[in-house]
Structure formats: structure tokens, C-alpha cells
């Protein structure tokens, strides 16, 4: 290895051999120097060192990112660490039994002062478990039988976690029997305490790891829970000073917001911002399709009075906002079936459409500039 150095000048050889050896010692194992080329600069004593290395990667070897450290090696390292710790304690004049990691760090910093800026490059003395990366222990016994029953899947820990999680799969989407259902099942009268004890016992059983027979047993006492869709919020009915029943709600469309007060008994008058609806919405489309539609849908055209305030938006947006507010307010005076019909008709859904922004490079939101061929 140091052979090429002999041919150079003696003064340089020692220093260069050190650097070569240091660079060789940096990466043990894989690095095999095939040639160390030397270039003689024209007429000068300086030599340019060119390393041409053939890094031979081992083929047909399990692709491991870390070095494989055997258990014996790690054990030896731990023994050496412990002995070294005691020596260090003796050196510092402290008690070896109560020498903690912080004391070790302080001792090393004292004995080997380093001016390096990179903290990780300074000398350290830590327990081998913190230095050498964690390795998987050998997963089979002396007779060759693996320890874990899912060993042959390749990822035993992950799949055992999946296996255990499946135990609780049947618990999702179901509820325990209620007391009445249990009484019906057993044809006996139960007290609340009896029922609570039983449920507690079943809960405990379901948390334990049990086989399929136990699962079946527990499932007998669970009933499916139908997933309920988002319930329609119904406004509460309020009463004003004259004893008239009314309900209020809000509605939005584009940038218009409306607040509507719907009275239960009335003659079909609609006043918007203090004005009559005929004045405020001269266009027929707004009046018929938006304002009157909720009443028309429920066949209650002349039966309710509406007072509403609206601001923002344009003509059509305000009409739409009022429609939504009126429909929501009407929910408190009608049956649940009718509420469901209104929901299906789309009267209770706020329109999410808003104005799309104009983009740069285009004339509008979608319209592009005129394309000219030449």
C-alpha cells in the first residue's frame, strides 16, 4: 500500500503516506485501492496525487443499508464500554458506581478538548446501543423454527398489528343491545345494575384477544347502527308579543345575505326591506321561481306572512338568498316528511356557486384571447 511512496522524495513520503493511510482507514471493508497514480508536475517537486479507485461492490449479497453487526460483537463492545467507564471514573477521581452519562461527557470534554465546530465530530463515548444502529435479532430458534407465527410474510410485526386490529373490526358500526332488547331476548326482568354489569363484561371480553367462537358470541349482543345522514337543523318556533308564532332563519347566495321571518298564520304577504315584493322584485322570474316556490311546493301559498331583510349581491342573488332563508324558516311549521321532500327538491341546500376569478393571460375566467393564426 505504501509502496508508491518510496519512490518519492523522503521529506514528502512520511506526510503523504500518513494521508494515504488516513484516507484508506476512513472506509473499512469495501474500498480496495487498485491504483494510486502519481503525476509529476513539469520540473517541480510537487506531486499531484490522483486516486483512481475501483470501488468493488459485493454482488449477490442481501442489500443492507447498514453494516451487519453480530450479537457477540455488540456484547463485546458493551463490555469494553463498561470497563472503559470505570477506568474513566478512576481517572477523574470519582466513584465508578455512580458515574452517569453526563459525567462521561464532561470527562471526555475535559480530557480530549477539541476545537472542532461540528459537535458530532468531537470525541464521544456513548453506550454501544446508541452508536450502532438497532439490528433485528435472529428470528428463529436452534431447531430453525421461527418465533413469530407470521414470520414467512416478511413483515411479521406489521402484519401481526393488522391481525390484532381486525379483532375490533366487528365492533365498528354496531352498538350494544339496550336493556329492553336484552330483556326481550332473555324473557326476564332485569335491573339497571344487572344490565350494566353484563355490558361491562362483554366490553372486557371484546378487548381480549379471542377466537372466532367468542367473536360470534359477542356479536349476538350487538346490533347494527344505520349511518344517519346529516340531520336537517330545524329552527325553533318563537312567539312575538301578540302571541303570533314565527320563525327566523338566514340564507346566502353569491354575495347576498338574507334574513327571513315567517309567520305561521298570515295572508301571503311578503315584504322585503320594508317594501312590497312586487316593488322590490319587478321581474317575474324572481318573484315566482324564487320567492313563491317554497310555498307553492308545500301548497301553502296564501297561508304564511314573510318579512325579510336582504343586502349585498344583485337582483337574482338576493332572490335566491331569500328563497333559502324562507325554506329554512318554513321547516319549523311542517312535518318531517315534508322537510325531507324539500331537501330532495334542493330547497334547503345553499347554492355553492360563486363568481370565478379572472385569470391572467385570459380575457375572463374561461374566455381566452382571440387566437390569431398569424
Amino acid at each position, binding site marked *: 500500500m505504501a509502496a508508491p511512496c518510496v519512490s518519492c522524495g523522503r521529506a514528502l513520503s512520511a506526510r503523504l503516506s500518513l494521508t494515504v493511510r488516513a484516507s484508506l482507514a476512513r472506509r473499512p471493508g469495501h474500498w480496495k485501492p487498485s491504483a494510486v497514480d502519481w503525476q509529476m508536475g513539469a520540473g517541480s517537486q510537487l506531486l499531484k496525487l490522483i486516486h483512481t479507485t475501483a470501488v468493488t461492490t459485493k454482488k449477490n449479497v*442481501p442489500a443492507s443499508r447498514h453494516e451487519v453487526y453480530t450479537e457477540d460483537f455488540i456484547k463485546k463492545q458493551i463490555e469494553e464500554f463498561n470497563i472503559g467507564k470505570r477506568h474513566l471514573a478512576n481517572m477523574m477521581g470519582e466513584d465508578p458506581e455512580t458515574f452517569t452519562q453526563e459525567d462521561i461527557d464532561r470527562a471526555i470534554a475535559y480530557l480530549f478538548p477539541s476545537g472542532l465546530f461540528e459537535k458530532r465530530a468531537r470525541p464521544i463515548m456513548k453506550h454501544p446501543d446508541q452508536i450502532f444502529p438497532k439490528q433485528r435479532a*435472529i*428470528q*428463529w430458534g*436452534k*431447531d*430453525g*423454527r*421461527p418465533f413469530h*407465527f*407470521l*414470520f*414467512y*410474510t*416478511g413483515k411479521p410485526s406489521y*402484519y401481526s398489528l*393488522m*391481525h390484532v386490529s*381486525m*379483532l375490533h373490526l366487528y365492533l365498528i358500526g354496531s352498538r350494544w343491545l339496550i336493556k329492553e332488547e336484552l330483556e326481550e331476548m332473555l324473557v326476564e326482568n332485569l335491573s339497571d345494575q344487572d344490565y350494566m354489569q353484563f355490558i361491562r363484561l362483554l366490553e372486557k371480553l371484546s378487548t381480549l384477544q379471542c*377466537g*372466532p367462537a367468542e367473536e360470534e358470541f359477542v356479536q349476538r349482543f350487538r346490533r347494527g347502527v344505520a349511518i344517519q345522514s346529516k340531520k336537517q337543523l330545524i329552527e325553533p318556533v318563537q312567539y312575538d308579543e301578540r302571541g303570533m308564532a314565527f320563525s327566523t332563519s338566514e340564507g346566502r347566495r353569491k354575495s347576498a345575505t338574507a334574513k327571513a321571518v315567517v309567520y305561521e298564520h298570515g295572508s301571503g304577504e311578503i315584504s322585503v326591506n320594508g317594501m312590497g315584493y312586487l316593488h322590490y322584485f319587478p321581474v317575474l322570474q324572481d318573484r315566482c321561481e324564487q320567492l313563491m316556490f317554497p310555498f307553492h311546493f308545500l301548497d301553502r301559498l296564501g297561508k304564511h306572512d314573510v318579512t325579510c331583510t336582504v343586502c349585498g349581491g344583485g337582483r337574482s342573488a338576493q332572490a335566491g338568498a331569500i328563497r333559502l332563508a324562507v325554506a329554512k324558516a318554513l321547516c319549523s311549521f311542517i312535518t318531517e316528511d315534508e322537510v325531507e321532500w324539500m331537501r330532495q327538491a334542493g330547497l334547503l341546500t345553499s347554492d355553492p356557486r360563486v363568481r370565478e376569478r379572472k385569470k391572467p393571460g385570459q380575457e375572463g375566467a374561461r374566455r381566452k384571447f382571440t387566437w390569431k393564426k398569424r
Partner: protein
Amino acid sequence: MAPARTALPRLLCAGVRSARRWPGFLRKATPGPAGPSGRMLTGAPNPARSEPQDDHDLQRKILDLPLKHSDFFNVKELFSVKSLFEARVHLGHKAGCRHRFMEPYIFGSRLDQDIIDLEQTASHLQLALNFTAHVAYRKGIILFVSRNRQFMHLIENTAQNCGEYAHTRYFKGGLLTNAQLLFGPEVRLPDLIIFLHTLNNVFEPHVAVRDAAKMNIPTVGIVDTNCNPCLITYPIPGNDDSPPAVHLYCRLFCTTINRAKEKRRQMEILYQLPSVKRAEDSGTRRSS
């Protein structure tokens, strides 16, 4: 019996740690260059150096005795044709799904649905259970393989109950053929693979069937009318889709394996093996 002969030498090697010369007739039966020696364990010390001859004879007695009976573990009593019928094992798929090689096992077809011949099923099941019992008796590694998500959990539980292994997950490419690279140089491959569902989730034959045949691992498999029974050593024609049928199979395999292991323990105690003796000396006294 030929398939049993090919598998036995490897299993005998796995149990006994000495390099024995096998008698000629057994040697001839082993297929190809990747014979029993490939599966032998290395680096494990001999149990008793003081009396090797006695040890040999005892091991021989324990391992040879079951082979003299045709049904040493009495697996016939675990099921009957009636119990198979009640578990709906005879129901196959529609005639359009039928695989050509399953035709010998099909009794007939009723309203376009194939019915499997339960007499044949019973005899195949008896052979398969007997073989499983022998493998378990010789402390072989048994791997349950299935890719049916409905019974995944049940099969993993069955494997846990018998103390054997299961693989009901995504089957990685070279698991059996490239095991040295994936697990380590000294890994021990399964000695028997039991397929409760031969097809995977896309209705193609499971890769493990072909790989086990490549690695000379005997297989036991429940083959339905749409499956290919060719590469499976001990096919069991039967239904693999109904829950009662799969529950029955799991119960049967679990019982046979536990029975065989129990028998092995009893035989070892009976013949007073040195390893057992040492364990007893250090532990409790043996009750005669």
C-alpha cells in the same frame, strides 16, 4: 405413497442432526439435485455425544413406528361423508367456471352447478390429513396459505392455535425461491404448505403453488371446481367459498396437528429420550 417417500428423507434430516447415508431406494425416490441435503441444518450440536448409538435407535424407533401403520393417527374418525355434506363441501361453482382437470373429481352437475364427489373427497382428505399429521409428528414447519380476505383472520387464528405459521397476506415475489436473500443465509423453509384457497384475489393460481413445487415442498390444497389441481401434492377437491366448509377444514387441520404433536410428546416420554430426560432431571420428577 410416492409423494410421501420424496418428502420423508428431507423431514428425517430436519429432525435428526446427523449426516446419515440414506438407503438406496429412498435416495432414488428423491427428485433432482436439490435433494434432502439442501434442507439440512448446519451448526447445531449433537444432543448426546456419550451414547450416540442408543440415541440413533431411539430416534429410529420414534420416527419409523408411525410409518408402519396406514392411519397411525386415526384421522378417519375426525370426519365422515355426512359431516362433509352438512358443511356444504360438495358444492362447486357453475359449469362455466369448471377447470378441465377437476372433471374426474366432479360427481355431476345439478341446475348448472357442479357437485363434487364426496367419496373421492373423503379419501383424499384422509390421505392429506394423514400426511399433515406425519409432518407435524416429525416437527416440520407447516405454513397455511390463503388469499381469501373473508377467512384471513380465521386462518391466522387457526395457525396460532396449532403453533404453526400462516401467510394470508400479499405474497412477495421470491419468498420461497429467494429466501436466503430475503431472510438470511440459515433460514428454514416450510416443510409443508397447506392451501385453504388455491386461487388469489384475481382468480389466478397462487404463486406459492408453483414456488413450492420448485422448492420441493409438498403441498396440501383444497381445490374447488375452478382450481388447477396439477401442482398440488395432496389435492382435496371441495368447496372453498362457504364459511361452514372453511371452518370445518380449519378445525380438521388444527385437530390433526395438535394430535400429532401430542403423540410425539408421548412417544418421546415413553422412549425416554436423553434430551427429554435432562429436561425432566432439571424440572419435576416424572410420574410413571
